[in-house]
């Protein structure tokens, strides 16, 4: 009961408020077009008719939520997933490069963190650069990587995945360095008294201790991989993927299509992040964390 009172009702109320605001804005923003149409036809339009019309425009300034929902329903369920007009197809393209990039990036980040934790030289010389690189708008390179790799005949999934890899390995590396260093000195000393080897210290102490850090940074990494994959789809001439959907929509003024793609991307991000949250809970429980 507490859960319902403390989170379901407030969140639901805020969501409803957002939905209501959305409708209000849709009417307000789309009204000038309708008035313009009426003035051109030399007719006057009643307020009721105006409101109905603003929610059913072909290319509204702001589509009403039900228009977006209808577009999503149509492109997800009515069109077969193999068709290029299906949102599932485009989401699948984006998802595959996101996951490939995220997987590679996480692996690279973990390996880098292991190297940094075990080498004083790398720690002192490489770590400052990793931190600086977080302040750099790396995403701006995305289109260049795509076009340049296209020029040397590397096309398809790999270039996009490389952008996601590049974006996602920084948070994982930084988080894991923190995580692998998180065991207390007392625990490290205990391992020493056991005469544990470096690899034993790693597998039995450092690695398990770093798990919470790993999952926290993986959540950030998967969200940023998705952004990378979407931005990576922009410059290829809008072939396939959520980003291509956005770009094509903005070329042809298909606002409903843009919003549908945006909602799909948002859903994907939410699902991916909560999946990692779920895995984190499972792993934590397996490792003996009691809530």
């Amino acid at each position, binding site marked *: 009961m507490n859960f319902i009172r403390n989170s379901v009702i407030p969140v639901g109320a805020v969501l409803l408020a957002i939905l209501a605001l959305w409708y209000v804005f849709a009417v307000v923003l789309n009204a000038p077009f309708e008035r313009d149409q009426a003035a051109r036809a030399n007719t006057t339009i009643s307020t009721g008719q105006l409101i109905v019309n603003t929610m059913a425009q072909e290319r509204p300034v702001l589509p009403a939520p039900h228009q977006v929902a209808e577009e999503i329903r149509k492109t997800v369920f009515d069109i077969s997933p193999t068709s290029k007009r299906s949102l599932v197809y485009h989401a699948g393209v984006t998802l595959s490069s996101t996951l490939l990039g995220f997987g590679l990036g996480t692996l690279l980040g973990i390996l880098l963190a292991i190297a940094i934790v075990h080498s004083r*030289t790398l720690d*002192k010389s490489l770590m400052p650069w990793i931190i600086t690189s977080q*302040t750099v708008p790396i995403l701006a390179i995305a*289109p*260049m990587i795509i076009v*340049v790799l296209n020029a040397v005949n590397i096309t398809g999934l790999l270039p996009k995945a490389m952008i996601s890899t590049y974006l996602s390995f920084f948070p994982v590396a930084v988080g894991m360095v923190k995580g692998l260093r998180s065991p207390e000195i007392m625990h490290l000393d205990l391992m020493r008294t056991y005469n544990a080897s470096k690899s034993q210290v790693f597998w039995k102490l450092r690695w398990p201790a770093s798990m919470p850090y790993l999952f926290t940074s993986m959540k950030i990494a998967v969200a940023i991989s998705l952004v990378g994959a979407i931005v990576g789809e922009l410059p290829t001439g809008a072939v396939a993927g959520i980003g291509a959907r956005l770009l094509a929509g903005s070329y042809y003024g298909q606002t409903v299509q843009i919003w549908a793609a945006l909602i799909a991307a948002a859903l994907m*991000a939410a699902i991916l*992040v909560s999946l990692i949250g779920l895995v984190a809970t499972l792993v934590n429980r397996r490792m003996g964390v009691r809530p």
Partner: protein
Amino acid sequence: MTISRSPLAIAAFLLAVPGLLISSGGDVQATLAYSTPVILFVAAAVALFTSVSIPSLIVVLILVHVVAFCLIDLLGSMLTARPDIGYWCMVASSWLLAWFSVQNLAGLKLASAQAQRLVNFALPVLFGAWLLILWEILVRGFGVPSILLPPPSMIAGRIANSVPTLWVDFQQTYLKAAIAGYAIGCGSGFLAAIIVDRVPFLRRGLLPIGNLVAALPVVGIAPIMVMWFGSYWESKAAVVVIMTFFPMLVNTVAGLAASGAMERDLMQTYGSSYGQTLLKLRLPAAMPFIFNALKINSTLALIGAIVAEFFGSPIVGMGFRISAEVGRMNVDMVWAEIFVAALAGSLSYGLITLIERAVTFWHPSYRT
């Protein structure tokens, strides 16, 4: 005479020997081609046969950088031919020597704090310098097409040649769009956080949503903003506003909850009003969180402004320049823009860190 047992020094020495014997390629008759291997050999010998000390490390470092400079210069005189085995041996040897010096510098425990700080600053600089040196040598030595990856010298030349263009783009994207959007986004996020904090119902309802939105690909909103606000900088600022709003909201709300119950009780016994508690206790306590959001947002703002320009912009701006020059395969210009973006990003991050240090001087992480 002590022989260093470091495998790095031994490998560097062994690789320096072929440089003396085998030709480094090309039809070079310059004195440079003869003197470079000798300098390298001396450096390797110093590294191998002297015990590790600061003077010997400095000698090795200076010699190795002279060698690196000569090696790059040699590339310029080998116009047609590709460098030979001897050349690559020298490159590998000098890189190993630099690595050897950095490793030993990192391992040194210096008595004076000032010297330690100098070393801590020098290590990443050396690492970065060698990244650039190897990038330059490998790209030019192997003849990598400049479309794929231009050498740093070419990018530097391009930056020097097109300062006016870069400055105009920087003005458009950073000084107008990113800063305006950043200020509005962070400001409104901050005010919203104070309201949300005052109303518990909103806090419970809005925070989970705010947390979710902070993870969403908000850049996707860019085409819509371009449609609504036109293709000038206002639409980019709008994207930045939306991108920066939620991180600020979430962090500030978390920060406002950070002051301890005991301190709040103390404020209550003083009979202080809500406003007094907010200004004198809770906002100062929230500052580390707020600065965290400001730092995250400084990167997001630049990304938002640049990516939004991919969806339509006037013929000026960093994002526009990147997508236009990529289309014309002027990759060096793209790298020049990226350099400017990286510089702007790091400098603004550094500036915020400095302000943070001044404002949150009381925080444990800054007390010494």
